[in-house]
Protein backbone atom coordinates (compact mmCIF):
# COMPACT_ATOMS: atom_id res chain seq x y z
CA UNK A 1 0.00 0.00 0.00
CA UNK A 2 1.29 3.49 -0.85
CA UNK A 3 0.80 6.44 1.46
CA UNK A 4 1.35 10.19 1.72
CA UNK A 5 2.40 10.18 5.35
CA UNK A 6 5.90 11.54 4.75
CA UNK A 7 4.52 14.41 2.64
CA UNK A 8 1.82 15.29 5.17
CA UNK A 9 4.35 15.19 7.99
CA UNK A 10 6.80 17.35 6.06
CA UNK A 11 4.06 19.91 5.34
CA UNK A 12 3.60 20.33 9.07
CA UNK A 13 7.31 20.37 9.78
CA UNK A 14 7.13 17.43 12.16
CA UNK A 15 9.94 14.96 12.68
CA UNK A 16 9.20 11.23 12.75
CA UNK A 17 9.65 11.31 16.52
CA UNK A 18 7.12 14.14 16.90
CA UNK A 19 4.57 12.34 14.75
CA UNK A 20 5.21 9.13 16.67
CA UNK A 21 4.52 10.95 19.93
CA UNK A 22 1.24 12.37 18.60
CA UNK A 23 0.16 8.90 17.42
CA UNK A 24 1.41 7.22 20.62
CA UNK A 25 3.55 4.76 18.68
CA UNK A 26 7.31 4.32 18.32
CA UNK A 27 9.38 6.27 15.79
CA UNK A 28 10.22 2.94 14.18
CA UNK A 29 6.52 2.40 13.49
CA UNK A 30 6.22 5.77 11.75
CA UNK A 31 9.33 5.02 9.72
CA UNK A 32 8.03 1.58 8.74
CA UNK A 33 4.68 3.01 7.64
CA UNK A 34 6.27 5.87 5.68
CA UNK A 35 8.62 3.55 3.84
CA UNK A 36 5.81 1.13 3.01
CA UNK A 37 7.31 -1.73 5.02
CA UNK A 38 4.30 -1.90 7.26
CA UNK A 39 0.62 -1.28 6.64
CA UNK A 40 -1.07 0.01 9.79
CA UNK A 41 -4.15 -1.57 11.30
CA UNK A 42 -7.50 0.09 10.67
CA UNK A 43 -7.61 1.77 14.13
CA UNK A 44 -4.13 3.26 13.61
CA UNK A 45 -5.01 4.32 10.05
CA UNK A 46 -8.09 6.12 11.42
CA UNK A 47 -5.93 7.78 14.07
CA UNK A 48 -3.48 8.99 11.40
CA UNK A 49 -6.34 10.26 9.22
CA UNK A 50 -7.92 12.10 12.16
CA UNK A 51 -4.61 13.70 13.12
CA UNK A 52 -4.09 15.08 9.61
CA UNK A 53 -7.76 15.93 9.08
CA UNK A 54 -8.06 13.69 6.02
CA UNK A 55 -9.99 10.61 5.06
CA UNK A 56 -8.08 7.33 5.15
CA UNK A 57 -8.24 6.95 1.37
CA UNK A 58 -6.69 10.40 0.97
CA UNK A 59 -3.60 9.19 2.84
CA UNK A 60 -3.43 5.52 1.93
CA UNK A 61 -3.97 4.08 -1.52
CA UNK A 62 -3.77 0.61 -2.95
CA UNK A 63 -0.55 -0.26 -4.80
CA UNK A 64 -1.04 -0.96 -8.48
Amino acid at each position, binding site marked *: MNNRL*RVLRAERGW*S*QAELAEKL*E*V*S*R*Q*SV*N*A*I*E*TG*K*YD*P*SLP*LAFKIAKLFGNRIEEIFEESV
Partner: protein
Amino acid sequence: MFCADRTAAFKRYQRRVQVAMAVYFVVILGAAWVVKHLAVVGWRLYFWSVLPAVPIMVVIVAMGRYLQEESDEYQRLMMMRSILVGTAALLGTIVVSDFVRAFAEVDPFPPFASFIVFAVAMAIAQAVQKLRDRSVGDE
Protein backbone atom coordinates in the same frame (compact mmCIF):
# COMPACT_ATOMS: atom_id res chain seq x y z
CA MET B 1 15.41 -2.56 19.89
CA PHE B 2 17.65 0.47 20.14
CA CYS B 3 17.53 2.42 23.37
CA ALA B 4 15.74 5.56 22.17
CA ASP B 5 12.90 3.55 20.63
CA ARG B 6 12.12 1.31 23.56
CA THR B 7 8.48 1.39 24.55
CA ALA B 8 7.33 1.20 28.17
CA ALA B 9 6.16 -2.38 27.60
CA PHE B 10 9.54 -3.35 26.17
CA LYS B 11 11.35 -1.82 29.14
CA ARG B 12 9.16 -3.86 31.48
CA TYR B 13 9.88 -6.98 29.38
CA GLN B 14 13.63 -6.34 29.50
CA ARG B 15 13.54 -5.81 33.27
CA ARG B 16 11.62 -9.07 33.79
CA VAL B 17 14.05 -11.00 31.58
CA GLN B 18 17.08 -9.51 33.33
CA VAL B 19 15.72 -10.44 36.77
CA ALA B 20 14.80 -13.95 35.58
CA MET B 21 18.26 -14.49 34.08
CA ALA B 22 19.98 -13.23 37.25
CA VAL B 23 17.88 -15.69 39.26
CA TYR B 24 18.68 -18.40 36.70
CA PHE B 25 22.45 -18.05 37.14
CA VAL B 26 22.14 -18.23 40.93
CA VAL B 27 19.80 -21.23 40.75
CA ILE B 28 21.82 -23.15 38.16
CA LEU B 29 25.01 -22.75 40.18
CA GLY B 30 23.19 -23.68 43.39
CA ALA B 31 21.48 -26.70 41.84
CA ALA B 32 24.72 -27.95 40.27
CA TRP B 33 26.51 -27.62 43.62
CA VAL B 34 23.73 -29.38 45.57
CA VAL B 35 23.46 -32.28 43.10
CA LYS B 36 27.23 -32.75 42.98
CA HIS B 37 28.08 -32.40 46.67
CA LEU B 38 25.01 -33.50 48.62
CA ALA B 39 24.21 -36.68 46.69
CA VAL B 40 20.49 -35.99 46.69
CA VAL B 41 18.15 -38.75 45.53
CA GLY B 42 14.44 -39.36 44.97
CA TRP B 43 12.06 -36.41 44.78
CA ARG B 44 14.80 -34.02 45.98
CA LEU B 45 16.86 -34.86 42.91
CA TYR B 46 13.85 -34.15 40.70
CA PHE B 47 13.26 -30.89 42.58
CA TRP B 48 16.84 -29.65 42.02
CA SER B 49 16.73 -30.84 38.40
CA VAL B 50 13.56 -28.93 37.60
CA LEU B 51 14.37 -25.78 39.61
CA PRO B 52 16.72 -24.18 37.01
CA ALA B 53 13.97 -24.49 34.40
CA VAL B 54 11.67 -22.20 36.39
CA PRO B 55 13.44 -18.90 35.52
CA ILE B 56 13.52 -20.00 31.86
CA MET B 57 9.75 -20.53 32.04
CA VAL B 58 9.48 -17.04 33.53
CA VAL B 59 11.32 -15.66 30.46
CA ILE B 60 8.85 -17.45 28.17
CA VAL B 61 5.93 -16.04 30.18
CA ALA B 62 7.56 -12.58 29.97
CA MET B 63 7.46 -12.84 26.17
CA GLY B 64 3.74 -13.59 26.32
CA ARG B 65 3.11 -10.71 28.74
CA TYR B 66 5.06 -8.36 26.47
CA LEU B 67 2.86 -9.29 23.52
CA GLN B 68 -0.20 -8.64 25.69
CA GLU B 69 1.05 -5.31 27.04
CA GLU B 70 2.66 -3.81 23.94
CA SER B 71 0.30 -1.18 22.51
CA ASP B 72 2.58 -0.38 19.55
CA GLU B 73 1.36 -2.78 16.86
CA TYR B 74 4.55 -2.62 14.78
CA GLN B 75 6.77 -3.44 17.76
CA ARG B 76 4.42 -6.30 18.60
CA LEU B 77 4.67 -7.60 15.04
CA MET B 78 8.47 -7.50 15.18
CA MET B 79 8.50 -9.44 18.43
CA MET B 80 6.11 -12.03 16.97
CA ARG B 81 8.32 -12.42 13.91
CA SER B 82 11.36 -12.92 16.14
CA ILE B 83 9.57 -15.52 18.24
CA LEU B 84 8.46 -17.28 15.06
CA VAL B 85 12.04 -17.39 13.73
CA GLY B 86 13.25 -18.68 17.11
CA THR B 87 10.54 -21.34 17.18
CA ALA B 88 11.32 -22.43 13.60
CA ALA B 89 15.02 -22.77 14.49
CA LEU B 90 14.10 -24.68 17.65
CA LEU B 91 11.80 -27.13 15.84
CA GLY B 92 14.36 -27.57 13.06
CA THR B 93 17.03 -28.39 15.61
CA ILE B 94 14.81 -30.92 17.38
CA VAL B 95 13.80 -32.60 14.11
CA VAL B 96 17.42 -32.87 12.91
CA SER B 97 18.49 -34.17 16.31
CA ASP B 98 15.72 -36.79 16.31
CA PHE B 99 16.53 -38.07 12.81
CA VAL B 100 20.25 -38.20 13.47
CA ARG B 101 19.54 -40.16 16.63
CA ALA B 102 17.07 -42.49 14.89
CA PHE B 103 19.03 -43.25 11.71
CA ALA B 104 22.68 -42.66 12.58
CA GLU B 105 22.19 -43.94 16.13
CA VAL B 106 24.28 -41.17 17.60
CA ASP B 107 23.66 -39.18 20.72
CA PRO B 108 21.11 -36.37 20.46
CA PHE B 109 22.28 -32.77 20.64
CA PRO B 110 23.65 -31.84 24.06
CA PRO B 111 21.32 -30.65 26.82
CA PHE B 112 20.13 -27.05 26.66
CA ALA B 113 21.08 -26.76 22.97
CA SER B 114 17.47 -26.28 21.93
CA PHE B 115 16.76 -23.24 24.11
CA ILE B 116 20.09 -21.68 23.16
CA VAL B 117 19.21 -22.18 19.48
CA PHE B 118 15.82 -20.55 20.11
CA ALA B 119 17.32 -17.56 21.95
CA VAL B 120 20.13 -17.00 19.43
CA ALA B 121 17.79 -17.29 16.42
CA MET B 122 15.36 -14.87 18.06
CA ALA B 123 18.15 -12.39 18.82
CA ILE B 124 19.44 -12.58 15.23
CA ALA B 125 15.91 -12.02 13.88
CA GLN B 126 15.50 -8.97 16.13
CA ALA B 127 18.88 -7.55 15.08
CA VAL B 128 18.15 -8.06 11.38
CA GLN B 129 14.78 -6.29 11.70
CA LYS B 130 16.35 -3.35 13.56
CA LEU B 131 19.11 -2.99 11.01
CA ARG B 132 16.63 -3.19 8.15
CA ASP B 133 14.47 -0.52 9.80
CA ARG B 134 17.41 1.79 10.33
CA SER B 135 18.70 1.43 6.79
CA VAL B 136 15.78 3.19 5.08
CA GLY B 137 14.05 6.46 5.83
CA ASP B 138 15.58 7.22 9.21
CA GLU B 139 15.12 10.78 10.44
